[in-house]
């Protein structure tokens, strides 16, 4: 997959696979359609935070959207923000938080664009009450490569609206979008961390926390025996005590170079996990904390993906439907623990039943597990294949935004609506992911 020694100019966050493409930055919404025909397929990309190849296109042309960074209008009464699609969630927070507004939902990094958040229909710690990002985007504009423009909402061009939310950037270029923000009284989060051991206990705390706005759990994927599936359940809600808003600081920590991948192994990760688990001494711990470390613990270290070394990382995120028992998730966790390949970044969360308008959206009711593995060490490819099979056996599905290995059979079983979705793909658009999962079996 690598051609030559130099790095491709645009990489996905996992830095695997590495594919080459032309890169054309867009600066104005009127820059698209391009003035001259390229003769290659195109794909809009944002900040490149999706892990695998949904943001790549070998030999194609990537349309960089971060230059579409302008706000268009904001209604301080209703909290409705209209902005260009390349605006980042970080930029929205800088704008909105001092005015007493917050994102309706946010993934674990704020360095994603609005367009990317719609295209991957991202979710966050409040999925069980708020649904996906797309649930809070009542309207956007879609421009196709033939120059046609569609203003899309639930009632206007509703099929295009549904296809584009979670549509992996394939339906055309999103130029602007409306985003419904939610009011807050302070930057602070009322936080509570609760230690648990085992999936049953995790599920019990999840049920008890159904009314709490944000819930997620870190799980130790290395420990076995009596510590199997131990973790910390983290829940929180926006503080109800009004407080003055102070601006965010820009991060200054950065991983400057690739670290040797061998630094991450069963022993270092096991030690880290034990320390992390025992850092919280009591079973329950409450605190009033800033939203930044609560939502974006990794954003404070720029380029953290470099700790995985030059080969990059593979992310795995699946969803298993709720069926009353925990056998599927237990099998996944046991397989991972036995392999000894997991990193410390593993989370589980219970998704809710708020339905996304997106045709190809990933979340639906059930349990989601997300974690990453270094590429190429030991048997990580074989392990991920095995995890994919377990997911399939239990009627679950995997998340395109975090995938580099799903097979066509798996994708087409996970997303049986894919053929209906395919009608909405712009004929000039494609992605490495789409080519891979729709290849003839």
């Amino acid at each position, binding site marked *: 997959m690598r051609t030559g020694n130099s790095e491709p100019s645009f990489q996905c966050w996992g830095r695997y696979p590495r594919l080459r493409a032309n890169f054309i*930055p867009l*600066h*104005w*919404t009127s820059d698209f359609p391009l003035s001259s025909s390229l003769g290659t397929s195109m794909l809009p990309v944002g900040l490149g935070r999706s892990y695998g190849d949904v943001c790549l296109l070998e030999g194609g042309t990537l349309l960089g959207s971060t230059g579409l960074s302008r*706000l268009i209008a*904001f209604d301080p009464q209703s909290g409705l923000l209209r902005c260009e699609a390349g605006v980042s969630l970080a930029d929205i927070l800088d704008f909105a938080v001092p005015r007493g507004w917050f994102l309706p939902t946010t993934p674990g990094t704020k360095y994603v664009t609005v367009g990317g958040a719609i295209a991957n229909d991202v979710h966050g710690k409040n999925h069980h009450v708020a649904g996906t990002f797309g649930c809070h985007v009542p309207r956007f504009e879609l421009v196709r490569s033939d120059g046609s423009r569609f203003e899309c909402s639930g009632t206007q061009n509703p099929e295009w609206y549904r296809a584009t939310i979670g549509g992996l950037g394939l339906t055309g270029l999103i130029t602007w979008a409306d985003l419904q923000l939610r009011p807050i009284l302070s930057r602070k989060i009322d936080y509570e961390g609760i230690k648990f051991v085992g999936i049953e206990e995790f599920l019990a705390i999840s049920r008890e926390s159904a009314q709490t706005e944000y819930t997620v759990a870190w799980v130790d994927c290395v420990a076995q025996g009596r510590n199997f599936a131990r973790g910390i359940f983290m829940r929180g809600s926006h503080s109800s005590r009004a407080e003055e808003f102070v601006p965010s600081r820009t991060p200054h920590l950065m991983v400057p170079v690739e670290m040797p991948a061998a630094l991450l192994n069963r022993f270092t990760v096991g030690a880290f996990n034990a320390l992390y688990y025992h850092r919280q001494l009591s079973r329950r711990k409450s605190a009033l904390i800033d939203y930044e470390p609560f939502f974006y613990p990794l954003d404070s270290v720029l380029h953290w993906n470099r700790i995985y070394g030059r080969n990059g990382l593979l992310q795995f995120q699946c969803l298993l439907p709720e069926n009353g028992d925990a056998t599927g998730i237990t099998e996944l966790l046991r397989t991972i623990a036995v392999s000894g390949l997991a990193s410390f970044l593993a989370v589980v969360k219970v998704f809710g039943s708020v339905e996304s308008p997106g045709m190809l959206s990933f979340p639906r009711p059930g349990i989601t597990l997300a974690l990453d593995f270094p590429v190429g060490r030991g048997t990580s490819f074989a392990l991920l294949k095995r995890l994919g099979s377990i997911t399939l056996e239990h009627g679950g599905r995997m998340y395109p935004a975090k995938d580099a290995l799903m097979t066509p059979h798996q994708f087409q079983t996970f997303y049986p609506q894919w053929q209906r979705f395919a009608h909405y793909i712009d004929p000039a658009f494609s992605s490495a992911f789409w080519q891979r999962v729709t290849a003839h079996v």
Partner: protein
Amino acid sequence: MSKPMPRRILILGATSAIASAVARELLASHAQFFLVARNTEKLDSVRKDLLTRGAGAVTTCVLDLDNTAAHEQMFSAALQALGSIDLALIAYAVSGNQNEAQTSATAAAAILHTNFISTVSLITWLANYFENAHRGTLAVISSVAGDRGRKSNYVYGASKGALNVFLDGVRNRIDRAGVQVLTIRPGFVSTPMTAHLPQGPLFASPAHVARGIVKAVAANKDVVYVPGFWRPIMFIIRSIPEFVFKKLNL
């Protein structure tokens, strides 16, 4: 030597990526803007962006600044809208096509007209305005390319070099009136002007460059290289003896 943030701001070439980024950096003071650029739609999206982000007022003027005959009228409209001017930022230029410009003097003259002659017209008016006001900042975006002529872009470089000398003279004249004349020398910035170049580690974002410019305004600087690492790089480039330099492929 910090001074109050400028509140009445005139931007000439307001749809340039660096200019928009500077305008966003100056929003904290609820500034008022008078924006001049050629393209109506682009200018309008910059206006909406600044208004949404909290600008006090934004007035726009669609004008091709190559047309020096229209400058006088544009300035009176700006004064009418702003009342007075704290900061004027000149932020437009064309990179031109070096190959075309070295074979056609007409093409070279067009680059010189936009980057130097029309800018001289603006600077002349603004220098007189600020000298009479005994205050204010005149900030002009030049380029590191003006520090020494190179075969790859010497027509563009000459337009910026001439601009640097002109600004040195203006500064020498009106500094004593309490006016800051700031020559901004950016290196490579990721903007539409450089979109055709392969982006390397020397490229800076417009937002990064804008923060450097706003700091230089606040610190009353005369010449600023943005990002700052260009100052030593250009020092070295200027120090290479001509008998060596003329053999280099730069």
